[in-house]
């Protein structure tokens, strides 16, 4: 690399007294003082959540209100901090969603462990777990910081997903073999 010697400009007398610089600085800070504050005052003002924000992981239901999770436990497997804990369970055959066969008996996400990486959402084959806009999780005890299944569905709500994979399957079952 070529070395380019740059001569340093000697300071003028005024500069060496610091005073013009100090006055300049004071001018800047004074102007700044008269402008409104930039701070967002959090609980009253909320930031606009950008699209694809990764907030608290939640479970969602499909437009028909069926819980989408089939407890395949892939999220539990992929979760780097091991925050997810699922107890799989069987859906009774006579239930409306009996053809899905499997649903979580318990689904716990320990928000003290969760790192909001979004791998659970990425890995989910049923598109049942989403990191949504909720970013503020608080609690007084460790137990409170564990989101159970009910709370996860409450946070997640319903997502307008139009796949209806399992409904199609049920229709095929009722319709029989199309050969």
């Amino acid at each position, binding site marked *: 690399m070529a070395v380019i010697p740059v001569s340093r400009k000697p300071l003028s007398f005024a500069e060496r007294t610091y005073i013009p610089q100090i006055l300049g600085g004071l001018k800047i800070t004074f102007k700044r003082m008269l402008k409104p504050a930039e701070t967002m005052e959090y609980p009253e003002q909320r930031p606009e959540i950008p699209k694809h924000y990764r907030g608290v992981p939640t479970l969602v239901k499909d437009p028909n209100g069926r819980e989408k999770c*089939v*407890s*395949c*436990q*892939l999220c*539990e*497997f992929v979760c780097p901090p091991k925050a997810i804990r699922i107890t*799989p*369970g*069987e859906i009774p*055959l006579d239930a409306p969603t009996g*053809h*899905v*066969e*499997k649903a979580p008996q318990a689904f716990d996400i320990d928000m003290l462990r969760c790192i909001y990486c979004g791998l659970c959402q990425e890995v989910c*084959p*049923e598109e049942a777990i989403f990191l949504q806009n909720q970013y503020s999780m608080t609690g007084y005890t460790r137990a409170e910081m564990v989101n159970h299944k009910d709370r996860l569905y409450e946070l997640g709500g319903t997502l307008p997903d139009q796949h209806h994979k399992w409904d199609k*399957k049920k229709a*095929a*079952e009722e*319709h*029989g*073999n*199309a*050969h």
Partner: protein
Amino acid sequence: MIAPPKPELVTVNIDGKEIAVPKGTNVIEAARLVGVDVPHYCYHPKLAIVGNCRMCLVEMGMPAVDPATKAPVIDPATGKQKINWIPRPQIGCGTNAAPGLHIRTNTPMVKDCREGVMEFLLINHPLDCPICDQAGECKLQEQATGYGRGYSRFIEQKNVKPKRTQLGPRVTLDDERCVLCSRCIRFSRDIAKDDVLGFIDRGSHSTLTCYPGKKLENNYSLNTVDICPVGALTSTDFRFKMRVWFLKQTNSIDTESSVGANTVVWSREGAIYRITPRRNDEVNDTWMADTGRVLYKQVKADNRLTSVKINGADSGLDIAVNAAAELFKAGSVAIVGSGRSSVEEQFLTRKLATTLKAPAHLVSRVGEGDRLLISADRNPNVRGALVTGLIAALPSAQLTELAAQIDAGKVKTVVSVGEDLAAAGLSAAQLAKVAIVYLGTYANETSAAARVVLPTLTVFEKGGTFVNQQFRVQKFLKAVPGAEGATDDLVVLAKLVAAAGGGSVPSEINTLWKTIAAEVPALGTMTFANLPETGLLLDATPWSALPFAEGETLHYKPTKAAQLVVGS
């Protein structure tokens, strides 16, 4: 140990690698020896070959010879003998190694074949991996990763077949997932000798089903689940319990009988979810009985002993050991060992017996063998007691000798290592007459009557060895941590030996094996750590005259002496 006969070797060439394999080895097995995986569904090393899945198609060829002179034809381009490749692919499972056989598994044609087979298999597959218990150990999943196309060209409706069929009390069938490999049918017919399964209908309507009015309910039905390459047959007990990729595998031994079937215990975070067989061609091939698969439930049984008790009151281990030592001081001790204890425990029981100069008894459990993997002797380790010298003769089912001694007042204290004395023929009055020190896992009449109760561990919570009916030393390892309040049998026994004045003996299993190797001649050359997974056969001649109860089972024939006695 008897040297196996030298098999006749033939040399084959697989993907350019030469290997000598025993004659009769098929191409899949030969390829496995050079580290080449030939995908397959219907082929199973322990079942008859049918060749109906077509997944193992490979290219084959033989060295060219001049038909007239039988002289090798040399390829001028390479200077080597020319290979006459068969223009069409052949199935690997149905072809045995022949001298000079050349096999190619990595050509475009082979790849095309595999991809074609996969695409056809997947057109009607429900693709419900998220709810399928086989996910993670599914051959279809694995091959789809290698040879699947990632999307489906099939736009018609998929087949609908019965899901959640109960084939038997322990097996659930999902016909949509079935790839019609017929492994389960062959197993039921050839191994379990219970020919209840079969296909009905044709083409894509083919459906696996039970013979009308019958059920898949033999004691080996769950092996069909193990060998099912996809998720069609699943275990009802394990259904939706846990995904297999979370489970830790620990090698263990089936304790049902003296066959000592090799098993794998699948556990997660201290809880066992299932037990499956482990391949051991000398003992159980790849099978095990259904009854052995539910034994893990005893770990969390309701009547588990979880606290040390002296006269019914909770106490500490050392206090209880001291209380037992006080009982020993009075003399006239008898010891009841167990054929369910490991070799190490029996060795320490013998130490305790010699220290106390007490006679050692054993209780035998003899039932009916099923000629497959459950033998007549339902104790897994009677031969271990013989090898360690705890007993010299075969035990009887009832402790009549001990009962007589108690009645005569010759015995004041009985140490029972895991045996329920009441079940072994001692009356309540006899139990009340003596002071009992009971080491065991479950509450029973003996533990209720015992002066000192020392809770110990089940076979899944500790390591050790069993000697099976072939005099094969096989080891089992600790799968899950011990129950709270229970102590390793070895620790308890070592403490008892020390309290009885027998000096300090190691209770850690590897250290203990040094002592065992030094004191038991038959085990003199072994260490616990180096014991192979398939076990080590001992020389059975010192005990060949004993009339063992076992009849013939898989890979076991009783010796003549025993047969004579049984037959007479």
